[in-house]
């Protein structure tokens, strides 16, 4: 990997930290503490289920918001503020800039998720006296959430490379919502006829499959995750994010920076 990519990634991470993005952890900590105390008082026997469900959903939501709202500005802000001029006039290639930006935001999200995971496990420890073997599947659910972040970050970056932040946010958020219902979309495609079937099938394969990456509910019920699913989801996320990133690079390579 080019060292320039690492420098750009580190600077993107540093920007997120200095812009107080990680302050969302405070809100998350308050939410988890409140949830743990409240659940402990009002739930009988399902404390673990509620805390895991709530905790992982919050990790996903907080991360998605960060991925979309920072991701959509990653390139467009640099163009608007002209900070890109002094970077691209150096021996930095455009693809290195895009990949560096992606890795920087992905790194921010991973660090954020690690802190949030600690919060989830702390809340879990509060409501149940000790960890169970099934709790290790929470780590898999968190890993899948990170894979979702990689996909949504690459999409936000793609839109950011040619569109305004507002439109990019609309596109990225829409794809997040549609992708979350991709399983239903596939079900609809199977039932539909003619052109509708083709269109629905094409859409189901084009939009990111966030349904398969969401195992929060089954993990909350203590169910294991098949190793085959872990492997296929990893491959899917890496290939999907990689292809989207290639698209962002192709667009950005040909873009005039006015």
């Amino acid at each position, binding site marked *: 990997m080019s060292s320039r990519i690492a420098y750009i990634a580190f600077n993107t991470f540093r920007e997120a930290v200095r812009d107080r993005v990680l302050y969302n952890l405070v809100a998350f900590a308050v939410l988890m503490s409140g949830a743990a105390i409240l659940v402990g008082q009002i739930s009988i026997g399902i404390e673990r289920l509620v805390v895991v469900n709530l905790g992982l959903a919050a990790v996903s939501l907080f991360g998605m918001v960060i991925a979309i709202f920072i991701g959509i500005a990653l390139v467009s802000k640099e163009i608007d503020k002209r900070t890109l001029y*002094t970077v691209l006039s*150096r021996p930095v290639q455009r693809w290195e800039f895009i990949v560096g930006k992606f890795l920087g935001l992905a790194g921010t999200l991973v660090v954020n998720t690690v802190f949030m995971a600690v919060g989830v496990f702390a809340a879990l420890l509060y409501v149940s006296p000790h960890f169970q073997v099934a709790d290790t599947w929470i780590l898999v659910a968190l890993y899948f959430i990170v894979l979702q972040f990689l996909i949504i970050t690459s999409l936000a970056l793609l839109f950011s490379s040619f569109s305004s932040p507002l439109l990019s946010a609309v596109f990225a958020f829409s794809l997040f919502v549609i992708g979350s219902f991709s399983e239903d979309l596939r079900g609809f495609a199977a039932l539909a006829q003619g052109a509708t079937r083709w269109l629905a099938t094409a859409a189901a394969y084009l939009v990111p499959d966030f349904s398969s990456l969401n195992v929060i509910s089954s993990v909350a019920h203590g169910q294991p995750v098949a190793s085959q699913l872990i492997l296929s989801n990893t491959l899917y996320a890496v290939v999907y994010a990689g292809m989207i990133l290639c698209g962002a690079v192709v667009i950005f390579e040909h873009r005039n920076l006015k």
Partner: protein
Amino acid sequence: MAAIEILGLEKTYTVGFWRKRAKCALRPLHFNVEEGEIFGFLGPNGAGKTTTLKLLMGLVFPTGGTARILGREINDPAMKAQIGFLPEQPYFYDYLTAPELLEYYAQLSGVAPKERGRKVGEVLGRVGLPDVGGVQLRKFSKGMLQRVGIAQAILHDPKVLFLDEPMSGLDPIGRREVRDLMEQLKQEGKTVFFSTHILSDAESLCDRVAIIHLGELRGVGVVADLTSSVEGKVEVVWQGNLVPAAVKTMTTEYHLTGDTVRAVVLEGNQDAAIDALRRDRLRIISIIPVRTSLEEYFVRKLKPSEAAAGARS
């Protein structure tokens, strides 16, 4: 060898909702900048100076033509390690301090890790910002940002510098310091290509200038040559507040300042004017041929298109 070769570089943007309307930002541009010279790229606002610089930096892509810097294509990363660029009204990552920003740029420019700290301190001192260590750039004034901009352009010891309006936002002392810095860079053997619309800066600094207007090159030349054409007039200065009647008939213009009179007369009338002044026992201070200033040359080069534009409207 030419440090910069511009070979028919041109740029046309498509504008409008459907991007069907063509707007020519730069007509085919041809000129060279020699190694070790300070070259001024002059033109009024909107002339195409920044577009040319963006084309040379690979920030926008040309519609036609090409350019070479240090004999290499403009998108060659090896060439980019040897150039420095100051954009117009630069804006930097404002969450960083000046040393952090320069460290980052040093990393991207391929400066060796051992040398980075020394180079950062050195250039900050050179641009007059030696004590800005822990202050984030968001707290910097416009003039300080301009100095940081110059620092990042010279940080990696480039051979060719591209400066877009380098004196913009600086106070008179700052402008003087930048002028001195540019002269030092020239003495170090560097090539400096800078755009400006402030003609006095160009006249005092440049070996050669190019004038661009409405995206079209209007002239290139050595400053001394452009400004040395004698207009066939002389300026006669004498002491006193009297303008002899004979001189009044010959002069095209005269100005009285305190006890000094300046009058411009045609070269053919020079002797007659001197005789008239002597007859009235007026002390002659100087007789100087009137030469074209860069400003006059500039205005003359800009006028034809304006006349044409007026005719079109």
